């Protein structure tokens, strides 16, 4: 589902990613771990073209990205198949919860409005936010906002989901409710890449753990192999 080959990203003269290669099979859960500044976010954002790279290639959900500028429309098509969830949620504050979830399909899809809305309500129920459909993001807790953000990404029907530290901005109780949602998604067979410091999550859900250090893949393996036994 994802193939990264010898990815190189340079920022201000420094090689932030220095020849990263990895593969993510369909239906698997990959967690990216590594010290702060090791390039996890940069790698994740290269996967959906939010950041450019100068060497190597990415193949994801049937789309191929090469180094340098992309042909017009290519990134938009790729991103419709690749959902992303951010550390800071980034919900649209001027829209209600339901409108946050339906905006993507409304702008980009061809389905009728009531169908889009019904599908969005199903997604909101799945993340436990169905009764907040009419609320504004500012009135929600962080955990609730992040669950809405997940529903928003799912509304485009992505083949791959990318998570960049989805629980780092949350307290443990809210973290748990968000992680439960992600684990549930993983059990449903959703292909995903999750950047996280949460070893518990990696052990519960990860098919493979990739450890980055200074822009290189340090180790790849199962959660037990990379993170050691629990406790």
């Amino acid at each position: 589902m994802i193939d990264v080959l010898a990815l190189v990203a340079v920022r201000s003269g420094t090689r932030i990613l220095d020849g990263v290669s990895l593969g993510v099979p369909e239906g698997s859960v990959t967690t990216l771990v590594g010290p702060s500044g090791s390039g996890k976010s940069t790698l994740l954002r290269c996967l959906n073209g939010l950041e450019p790279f100068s060497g190597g290639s990415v193949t994801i959900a049937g789309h191929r990205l090469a180094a340098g500028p992309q042909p017009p429309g290519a990134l938009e098509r790729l991103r419709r198949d690749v959902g992303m969830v951010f550390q800071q949620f980034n919900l649209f504050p001027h829209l209600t919860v339901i409108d946050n979830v339906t905006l993507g399909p409304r702008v980009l899809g061809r389905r009728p409005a009531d169908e889009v809305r019904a599908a969005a309500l199903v997604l909101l129920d799945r993340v436990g936010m169905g009764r907040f459909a009419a609320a504004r993001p500012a009135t929600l807790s962080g955990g609730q906002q992040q669950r809405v953000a997940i529903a928003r990404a799912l509304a485009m029907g992505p083949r791959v989901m990318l998570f960049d530290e989805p629980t780092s901005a949350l307290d443990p109780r809210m973290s748990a409710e968000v992680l439960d949602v992600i684990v549930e998604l993983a059990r449903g067979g959703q292909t995903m890449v999750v950047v996280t410091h949460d070893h518990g999550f990696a052990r519960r859900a990860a098919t493979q753990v990739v450890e980055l250090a200074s822009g290189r893949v340090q180790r790849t393996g199962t959660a037990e192999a990379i993170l050691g036994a629990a406790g």
Partner: protein
Amino acid sequence: MRPPRPARRILARALLGAAALLPPAHAADLDAVRARGSLVWAADQEGGGPHVYADPDDPARLRGFEVELAALVAAELGVEPRFQQGQWDRLPLLLGRSADCVINGFESTPERQRDWRCSRPYYAYALQLVARRDVALDSVEGLAGEGPAGPWRVGVLTGSAAEIEMRRRGDLRVEVVGFDGTVDCLEQVRSRVIDAALMDDCIAWFNADRFPELRCVGRPFAGGTYVILTAPDTPALGAAIDDALGRLVADGRLEALYDRWDMAGRQQMLLLRDAAEVPPAPRSGLAELMRSTLPLLLRSAGMTILLSCAAFPLAVVLGLSVAVGRLHGPAWLRPALTLYVEVLRGTPLLLQLYAIFYLLPKVGLALPALAAAILGLALNYSAYESEIYRAGLKAVPPGQLEAALALGMSKWQALRHVVVPQAVRIVMPPVTSDFIALFKDTSVCSAITVVELTKRYSVLALSSGRIAELAVVTALLYLAMSWPLSLLSRWFEQRLENPAGRDRP
């Protein structure tokens, strides 16, 4: 962005302005003029020739038959003439303040006889209609028929006898357009912005060679006389000026002056000898004043609203487009847009209006005054709005754009559905207060013949002599219009400060 001006200040400024216009306690009578050694005479060079105009070969020098008349009168009083510039329809207000007399083609009217001291007549005029040679019109009565496009648009000097005559004639199908200068007026006849112009015969003769595309239509009609105005409380000066004019007529110097200016001296002397006296108009009561002026003031307030409500949405749309272009547009576009903003912010609105109204016709784009005013206001304010929107767009966190892009939207879709709506909300308070500023700036449009509330006030106040009363009424009208906007602006501010707590399920 402009600093918001509280609506209350309009009232204060109007009242201060009215106080400044009231006649002063001590006007300079004849003794003071002699002691000073100079007679200060007021006129408007912009009014044009043959009265008073800047010498085309040496713009610092004044020429005109009234320049020479003023010199003769001053010499008779044994003093030097000194020129004072002022806007034509407001010249009498300078009397007793910065001018001793007004010599500038002021017709003897019942209102002027009532409000000022009018000298004996020094010139007998009649009104002359002027039109393009290719316009089918052969007499004033022709104005009763269909114009080239609806009613005939006829230019006049604001406050002149020509304007009074055109507004008085109910039998003609005319739309009267007021100008501050004859040359501007004739320019707009030439470029077909208006269909004809009505002016004193001597002005038409004077400009005949300058505007070969124009011709005099029919014979001069509805005549009257020019008088020198002095303040009511300088009777000795007024009498001395009368005596001086009498001597100039008696010894032939005035006749010679008119002959020098090709203004038929002999005929003038005969007309002046037989000129009828004009009786002063009675002073009207307050109720009468309101009855006659309030409908006109209200109609002009409507024009102020029309100008604001048409120009501001345009300014907002333009400004937003410019802001988006400067932040997200292609690299080649950005410097062009920056230049657009700097030029429009760095030059006066008045100049921009002049350029649109008087210069565009020269390249074949003749806009009617109202359209020119709306376009000018919209362009000018679009520069200010674009700066506000630029700040607003920058205030939207970058994560918002990224989240929209991550869904698969193009940059323009992301801007349109996610970033711009948020920026618009953020800038609502400053944009609303700019609307109030534009609302007041509409008064500048009077410079290109649009009669809005301030212009109407000025015309009515001068013709009725009720400066203070009408100032209060006008200020109240402005307040009634701008106060709701102030409240709206404050409401937006509060909503922005306290966005949570709404829409809770």
